[in-house]
């Protein structure tokens, strides 16, 4: 599964002395390679996360196309794009993104519940929690988790439906060194199994696990 971006850009309305718009992502082309970990690094505010969400079909483009195996994502209806995102993409968002009404296990199963029944996925969910080291917190509520534990829950949740493409936005924030290495190693393993992994991070350790590295600066993307 190849994800390609052609001449995509993103502007926000933010009037300043010199301009009426702020260019978060300047027009660029991009290919996310299969079976590899692709890292995008850069300063805070450089446009890395914006680019990630554009590629994941979650931010409307101001120009260009995002193609998944030649299918223009943004030409799909909302129902079609949402189903595709559920089945093909696993997004690990930045920050604390737990659903507070649900337990940890229920959070991990949430992507399954959107279009189906979670009955047959409970064992897998428990295995994923074990993989990220929080199997003992399965019945805990979000309010009982630390930031790092919630991040690991989000990783398990992104993997529950065995997606073809993983979008990870700062997945190692709030994690200690040991867990950071574990998560990066896991993402590397997933890529090696044939999936595509897009990793947005400013974690220096991540370079050791990445196959391709890009640097983003003021909306411009350059390959390192």
């Amino acid at each position, binding site marked *: 599964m190849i994800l390609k971006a052609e001449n995509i850009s993103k502007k926000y309305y933010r009037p300043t002395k010199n301009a009426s718009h702020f260019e978060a992502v300047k027009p660029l082309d991009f290919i996310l390679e299969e079976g590899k970990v692709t890292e995008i690094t850069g300063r805070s505010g450089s446009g890395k996360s914006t680019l990630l969400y554009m590629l994941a079909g979650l931010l409307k483009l101001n120009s260009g196309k995002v193609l998944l195996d030649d299918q223009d994502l943004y030409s799909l209806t909302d129902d079609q794009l949402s189903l595709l995102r559920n089945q093909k993409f696993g997004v690990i*968002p930045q920050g604390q993104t737990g659903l507070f009404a649900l337990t940890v296990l229920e959070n991990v199963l949430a992507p399954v519940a959107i279009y189906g029944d979670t009955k047959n996925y409970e064992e897998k969910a428990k295995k994923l929690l074990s993989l990220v080291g929080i199997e003992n917190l399965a019945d805990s509520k979000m309010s009982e988790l630390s930031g790092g534990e919630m991040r690991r829950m989000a990783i398990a949740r992104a993997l529950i439906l065995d997606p073809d493409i993983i979008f990870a*936005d700062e997945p190692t924030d709030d994690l200690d060194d040991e867990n950071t290495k574990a998560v990066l190693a896991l993402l590397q393993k997933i890529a090696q199994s044939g999936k595509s992994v897009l990793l947005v991070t400013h974690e220096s350790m991540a370079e050791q696990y990445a196959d391709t590295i890009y640097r983003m600066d003021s909306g411009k993307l350059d390959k390192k």
Partner: protein
Amino acid sequence: MKFSSLPVLNILGKKSRSASLFVFSLILSLSIFGGALILSSLRTGLKSLEMRLGADIVVVPYEARTKVSADTILNQGNRTFFYMPKSNLDKISAIEGVEKASPQVYMCSMNAGCCSVSLQLIGFDPESDFTIQPWVEKSFKGKLSDGDILIGSKVTLSSNRKLKFFDREWNIAAQLSETGTGLDNAVFANMNTIHLLMEAADKIGWSFADKKYSDKMISTIMVKVMDGYDIDNVASLIQRKVRKTQAVKTKSMTSGIAQSLSGLSKIIAILTAIVWFLCLLILIVISNLIIGERKKEFAVLRIMGASQKKLRHLVMAESFVLNTFGSLSGIALAFLFIVPFHNLIKSAMGLPFLLPSFLWMIILVLACLVISILTGCASSSFAAHKIAQIDAGIIVREG
């Protein structure tokens, strides 16, 4: 776990947030159903009063004309007695335009040791009566024997089924159904029994009518006017031909009550509408505040692949569940406030007040439930539409 269980999980997961919507939904349905039930009970009471009156004209002795109004015997049940010659009955029956005429005799028991309780006693002629008899037949199918009495719904039914009046016990043949009027506090008997009561009263020193003439005296004559005849004209004829009487049109008795009822109905309707509007506004504000607070939660669901349609359904489903439980609770509370205390409400309002039939109450419950739920869901619909349009990427980025 299915997506369809998420609304309930969300509601239970944040109880304090859910409580605010629940409470206003409860207030909304409490006011709508409470208002509707009170209005309905007032209308049923008035209808019952009109049916109990039954007659077009009530003929009374002239000197008793101020004692007969819907506010006295029929509504408040004040104890009173007055008499005129029984011969008036034949005179009135012969008047052109009179279809039926039936006598009634009034007396009252005493608030003393001779009597179980102080009540209005009404004698009627089961053969010719057309006002009380239809009501009696609902609870008593047999022939009312001499010495037997019928009691209104508010008169306490003793375990031995007897009441003492004037140092003598009288057998209770039946207890009549509720009318929502003062007749619920009255006792009814046939003419022979009323004369026996008068004799018993006379024996212990209470004289209602001269003993010599007691069986030749009546209190009122209920008149039904023939179709095609003007009631005013017949009433005037009666007064001209039967001296020392007053022909009171029953419509004039109830028109005052009907006017009061109309005024009260308007007030209740306006108050209910105000409460409904305020609750709607508050629900809209709360819904929007809650949705604003949950933007990130919905953005995460979008990231996981929930479509805009699913998000809208989720918000509306939560609103539906909360509003249904809130509405049911409000309706239950209205029942608890009104049904057990309907006599107090009747006394406070001074108007006929009769709870509607079970079937009509079910219809009211369903109608109020639908209105409350629809109002609650409508208040969430704008928020649901707004949240479905969120740019998930922006919201999650901004944290």
